[in-house]
């Protein structure tokens, strides 16, 4: 699962819908892999407008990446900064959680990730 996708995922438990602690999910005991992908700057610029930067900063720190700048680059800044583009591409698109768990900060539910696939099936009483 890409770091980008993690930036959009929330806990699926009903009782967590209204809690701000249920996002972002926290990676635990994670094995990361990197998949080389071609840079798609139009795509990156498009999704960056919807990335939750604060959550991304948290995730990056939890995964052991260097600290992100305090604010996201504007589309203009991104267009003029090859290095920033490449680094964000590496973090958001190429870095993937292959094995491990994603933990909800509100209810503590752990979503297992196996071979990159997160398991979001819940027992009915939690939905």
């Amino acid at each position, binding site marked *: 699962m890409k770091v980008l996708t993690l930036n959009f995922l929330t806990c*699926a438990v009903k009782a967590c819908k209204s809690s701000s602690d249920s996002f972002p999910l926290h990676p635990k005991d994670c094995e990361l892999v990197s998949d080389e992908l071609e840079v*798609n700057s139009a*795509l990156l610029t498009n999704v960056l407008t919807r990335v939750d930067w604060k959550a991304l900063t948290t995730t990056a720190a939890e995964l052991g990446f260097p600290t992100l700048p305090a604010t996201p680059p504007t589309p203009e800044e991104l267009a003029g900064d090859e290095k920033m583009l490449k680094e964000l591409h590496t973090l958001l698109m190429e870095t993937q959680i292959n094995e491990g768990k994603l933990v909800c900060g509100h209810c503590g539910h752990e979503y297992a990730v196996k*071979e990159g696939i997160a398991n979001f*099936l*819940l027992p009915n009483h939690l939905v």
Partner: protein
Amino acid sequence: MSRPEDTLPPDLHYNDTEARKYTTSSRIQNIQASMTNRALELLDLDTPSMILDIGCGSGLSGEILSSVDPSEGGPHIWVGMDISASMLDIALQRDVEGDLMLADIGQGVPFRAGSFDAAISISAIQWLCNAESSEVSSTGRLSRFFNGLYASLKRGGRAVCQFYPKNDLQRTMISGAAIKAGFGAGILEDDPGTKNAKLYLVLTVGGSANEGDSGDITGVVKGMEGVDVLDARRKHKEKGRKEMKKGSKAWINHKKAQMEAKGKVVKHSSKYTGRSRNIAF
């Protein structure tokens, strides 16, 4: 021929054997590809986008999303949800580019509001009409799915779901649930009346920048042949305005349902909802 939907739940029907048979059949590959291309046409994306693939299976559609040419607004990235581990396993073996999740769409769509530019679903949502167990109704599963989908799309975003309803009742049940969740909805039927007939539920999340253009379903399907605009919102609103007095219990409940459909958290309704209160000093 009996429908697999009537025989087994999807995760049991799509076991290892069936998942492999499904994915390697060139007849199925061709049909799924042509429906995916049709859905892409209806989504009308002009820039590389983030797409949710609902019931993505082994990634037959996803592969197409990943390979849309830049001259046609691609390539896109996608996240696929599917309830069958065997289908997802085949997707892994085929090394698809999208992210995969093992998830039941009848339990909801666990993404924060406005995550996706668009959503696509090919031959999957009719499965929601079959209740998994007696504890959960298919109405409940349909509404959790469409409410979740509505919230997870950005404003102005679209979803196109090709589906195989068993009969008119299922067709109405599915489109009705989408409208109830707040979508503008239209149905497009290709080759109607033939054995190749295909139904596409075309959904829009209102609020495009210019009123009356792409955010409005009538603009999307207008001028296409065989299109049935289902947008019940306008009718519904007018009716509602006449019948519901502002501040009345019916009005409050209606507003609450609207807010809930938008993914907002609303207070529980009770017998006290909308009652006039005695002011005590």
